[in-house]
């Protein structure tokens, strides 16, 4: 998979293992309709790893995202669960905005899991 460069948002794509991608986000996601940029790219990532593969998205180096980006992330989780692909979300728990954003996402995902959807792994890291 190629990297994504969309204005102030960069996503570096790594393949640490077969059927596994790590997406490292940097910069800011502030576009008017981030889903139009992110969803086609993330959908290709899901297709690349296939069923039972893993897509790990790293937000810990991201400086800022708008609420439309959060909506796109939720839609990505939904799409991954539809394709039976594992999702990991890595975030910096030392940053208040990331801790709160991902805490809310955990609550949404938990409700989906209780309805029988695939679990999502949240990984709290501390950037140095």
């Amino acid at each position, binding site marked *: 998979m190629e990297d994504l460069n969309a204005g*102030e948002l960069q996503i570096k794509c790594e393949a640490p293992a077969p059927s596994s991608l790590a997406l490292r986000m940097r910069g*800011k996601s*502030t576009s*008017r309709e981030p*889903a139009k940029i992110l969803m086609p790219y993330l959908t290709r990532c899901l297709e690349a790893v296939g069923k039972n593969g893993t897509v790990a998205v790293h937000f810990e180096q991201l400086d*800022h995202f*708008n*609420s*439309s980006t*959060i*909506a796109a992330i*939720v*839609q990505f*989780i*939904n799409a991954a669960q539809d394709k039976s692909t594992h999702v990991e979300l890595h975030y910096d728990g030392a*940053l*208040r*905005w990331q801790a*709160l*954003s991902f*805490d*809310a*996402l955990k*609550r*949404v995902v938990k*409700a*989906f899991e209780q309805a029988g959807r695939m679990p999502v792994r949240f990984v709290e890291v501390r950037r140095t």
Partner: protein
Amino acid sequence: MSAPLFLIDLPLSEDWDAVEAMRTTLLGCLGVLYPSRDYCETVGMIVAELLENAVKYGAWGPGVVGRLRVTGREAEVEIAVRNRLRDGSDAARLRAVIAEIDAARTPAEAYVERLRLAALNPGPSGGLGLARISYEGSCRLSAHFESDGWVEVRALAAQFDTSIAASA
């Protein structure tokens, strides 16, 4: 109420790129006055979400100029964004979103519900930004409607840390 430490009053247009420019400019100002990076980023987030709503859902055209007003005090920052509404249904929708946030048991509950709706209904995430402001900003929202079709949405963000870096 204490005297303002600062007042920022800027004209607002439908220029989307100006939103991020205003957020980052404001972050620089806040960083001089308030020691908490988390607080500064939270205020920046509130500014950006309110501006994005105004640009996205406002009625813009030749000669239409909105306002961003940020008033900083020792213990709090008030953010107010004024824009013209497209029609009466926008006003009703805004009232409904704020009423829904106020009626929720907690701001987190209102935000999580908006996220759940965003997952189920891909497309414009109406109300998610306001719910985020209430949840992450721990602040109360209000909308002040004017008879000529303008609205000012205000958010009051209290400081997490009570000390300030600069002596006013």
